[in-house]
C-alpha cells in the first residue's frame, strides 16, 4: 500500500525505540479506556462507533497538498470534538489497530509509534486547542468551525513533529538531508495536510451540530446559536 500520511512502516524506527513507544501507548490507551468506560453511555457509545467508522473511511481519501504530494485526515480533532478526548483516543487507536492488522497500513511493530502520534498526541493537542478556543469563541457555526479548523492544523503539525522526535531517537536510516530539513519538510507538508483536515473537520462537526447538537461533545449539551446575541 502506498503509505498513508504519518503511518510509519515496520523498521522505520529502531526496535528498542519502537518498543518504548509501544509500552507508552499501551499505558496511555489503558488510561483512556478506563476513562471511556466511565463516560460511555447509550448516547456516546453509538457515536464512538460511528466516529471510528467515519475516520477509517475518510483516512482512505488522500487529497493532494503539493504537486506530487498527498495527505489525509488523521481525525484527532474530529473525534475529540464529537466524542471527547478519552473516547476519541480509543476510537483512533482502534482504527490504527485495524489498519495495521487488516489492510497493512502502518507496520505492526510501528503500531506503538503510530498510536502515540495519531491517536494520543493528535487527540490531546486538538482537544486542548479546541477547549481553549471554545472558551472565547461564540457557540455559533462559525465559532465551532474556527475551533475545529485550528485544532486540526495544530494537532497534525504537532503529530508530525512527534514523529520527527521519534525518528531522531531511533531512526534506522541516516537522513542525508539532515534533521533540520526533515523537520521543516514534515512541519510544512503537514501544515498543508492540516488545512485539508481542518476543512473536513469543520464541515463535519458543524453539520452534526446543526442536525443533532446533543451528539457533539464539544458543545456539552448546549445548542448551537445562529449568531452572537447583541
Amino acid at each position, binding site marked *: 500500500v*502506498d503509505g498513508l*500520511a504519518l503511518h510509519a512502516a515496520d523498521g522505520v524506527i529502531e526496535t528498542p525505540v519502537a518498543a518504548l513507544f509501544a509500552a507508552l501507548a499501551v499505558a496511555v490507551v489503558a488510561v483512556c479506556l478506563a476513562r471511556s468506560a466511565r463516560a460511555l453511555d447509550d448516547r456516546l457509545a453509538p457515536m464512538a462507533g460511528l466516529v471510528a467508522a*467515519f475516520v477509517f*473511511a475518510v483516512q482512505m*481519501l488522500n487529497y493532494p497538498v503539493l504537486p506530487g*504530494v498527498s495527505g489525509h485526515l488523521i481525525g484527532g480533532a474530529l473525534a475529540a470534538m464529537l466524542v471527547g478526548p478519552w473516547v476519541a483516543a480509543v476510537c483512533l487507536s482502534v482504527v490504527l489497530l485495524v489498519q495495521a492488522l487488516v489492510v497493512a497500513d502502518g507496520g505492526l511493530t510501528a503500531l506503538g509509534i503510530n498510536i502515540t502520534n495519531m491517536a494520543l498526541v493528535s487527540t490531546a493537542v486538538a482537544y486542548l486547542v479546541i477547549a481553549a478556543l471554545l472558551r472565547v469563541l461564540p457557540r455559533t457555526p462559525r465559532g465551532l468551525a474556527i475551533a475545529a479548523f485550528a485544532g486540526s492544523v495544530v494537532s497534525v503539525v504537532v503529530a508530525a513533529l512527534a514523529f520527527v522526535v521519534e525518528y531522531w531517537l531511533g531512526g534506522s536510516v541516516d*537522513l*542525508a538531508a539532515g534533521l533540520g530539513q526533515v523537520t521543516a519538510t*514534515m512541519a510544512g507538508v503537514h501544515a498543508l495536510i492540516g488545512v485539508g483536515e481542518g476543512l473536513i473537520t469543520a464541515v463535519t462537526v458543524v453539520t452534526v451540530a446543526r442536525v443533532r447538537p446533543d*451528539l457533539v461533545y464539544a458543545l456539552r449539551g448546549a445548542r448551537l446559536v445562529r449568531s452572537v446575541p447583541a
Partner: protein
Amino acid sequence: MKRWGFLLAGLAVCLLLAGVVSNFASSSPDGLEHAAREGCTEYVASTARSAPRWPACSA
C-alpha cells in the same frame, strides 16, 4: 432527526466515502513518504549498502 436515523445516515456517508469517493483519492506519496524521499535521495546515491529499511529509500 431520530437517533437511529442519524446513525444510519452517518453509516451511509461512511460507506459512500469508502466505497465511491475513495476511487478519486490522490495516489501521490503522502507527507511522511515525501519527507523520507527528500531525506533519502542523497543517501541512496552515496552508499552502496543494500536496501535501507525506510521503504522510500529503496525506491
